[in-house]
């Protein structure tokens, strides 16, 4: 099974972080990524730029609308993700629990919809 682990963290933490904090945070993520690569769980993963760089795109009645944001008032924002391989939800939760962001933010674990090959 493939699971997408969506990492919701308070992005202000990264804004306020001292260079030393930042370095440690990045090192933790690098360490985690290496560990799940070695264990064979890793498929992909990226960190995202903060929500202030986000653009929302909608098409309604054939008309394109592009807006700044979304600026939803939430404490935690989507800050990155991992796409992982796991034998079941228990293994996926085990992997997700080791994502550094899980210690202060929330990791949402979503099974990937698998479609039959044509």
């Amino acid at each position, binding site marked *: 099974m493939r699971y997408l682990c969506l990492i919701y963290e308070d992005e202000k933490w990264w804004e306020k972080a001292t260079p030393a904090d930042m370095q440690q945070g990045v090192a933790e993520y690098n360490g985690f990524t290496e560990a799940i690569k070695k264990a064979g769980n890793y498929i992909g993963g990226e960190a995202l730029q903060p929500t202030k760089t986000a653009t929302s795109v909608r098409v309604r009645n054939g008309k394109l609308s592009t807006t700044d944001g979304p600026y939803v008032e939430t404490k935690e924002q989507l800050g990155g993700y991992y796409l992982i391989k796991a034998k079941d939800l*228990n293994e996926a939760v085990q992997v997700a629990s080791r994502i550094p962001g899980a210690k202060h933010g929330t990791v949402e674990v979503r*099974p990937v919809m698998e479609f039959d090959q044509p």
Partner: protein
Amino acid sequence: MQEAFAAALERWPIEGIPANPRSWLISTGRFKAIDRLRKNRREVGLEVDVIQELPEEPHDLVDDRLRLIFTCCHPALNPDAQVAMTLREICGLTTEQVAAAFLTTPPTLAQRIVRAKTKIRDAKIPYEIPERRDLPARLASVLHVVYLVYNQGYFTRPDLAAEAIRLGRLLVELLPEPEAIGLLALMLLHDARRATRTNSKGELVPLEEQDRTRWSREQIKEGAALVERGFGSRQVGPYLLQAAIAAVHAEAARSADTDWSEIVGLYDVLLRADPSPVIELNRAAAIAMRDGPQHGLALIDQILARKELTDYHLAHAARADLLRRLGDKPRAIAAYQQALALAVEGPERGLLGRRLRELGAEEMA
């Protein structure tokens, strides 16, 4: 509509767990068969060795039953669905019976179960016993479900309380972890007082007024022995500590004989193991018994000042009891009225009403 849900439920065990569909069916079937055999053995007498009549693979049998329990109580499932699935799949209650116990309609409950089963399938919640490293957390959610079932049955549904105790026994048998032992002990020690907990009018009878000769000696003995067994493991958790407190109460022949120092000491440890304002409240009530009402009152006022238990009726009821014992009638009445406005359960409301009448105050509607 209901039939459609029922059909979906019946079909699910076959279609829902593609990884090992037969295992589910076999285990559920076996589960019920073993329970019947056990029941028969109890009725026939212990000399009949039922174990020999059972199919081979006793180890697999244990595993099958545990797998079912851990799947039904998986923390990734909706909490209500965990309870409902446990009662249906493990205790064998019908959807109608579970719905009645939890004051909901069978279609709503069936829908909740279908949703949980869909998640088991689509998110691939495995049908397995957790790995050792996950066991404490996973066992905690199983025990929580069992305790919820027990509490739901506490006042009005002895059948549910009995199911919870039966589940507790099963867990201790299959997985004798200290907290499982603690929960079983706790339920038995509470259940021992079932006959004296409410009076003929259905009002709650406080512990110090209960007729202790009518407590079940058998359950107290079993519960106390379990507490001792649990403490022998040296891994003492919240259920075991609560059971130990219940055992101290149960073993006092008269209310006045209660060893309050021991109880306060146990609450101190409990508060460290599982910090919560409700435990603080209970500790304050025990301190009031050991050191005098004014000491307990000061602690309760501190908790309420933190605005943590403002809407918890028992905080106001405990405060009212202490004010009453201090002879502060007006403040006691005000606190009882506050508790009554927040209390939901009939027996508790009954006792609060009685206290108010004894103080010469009217119950507010």
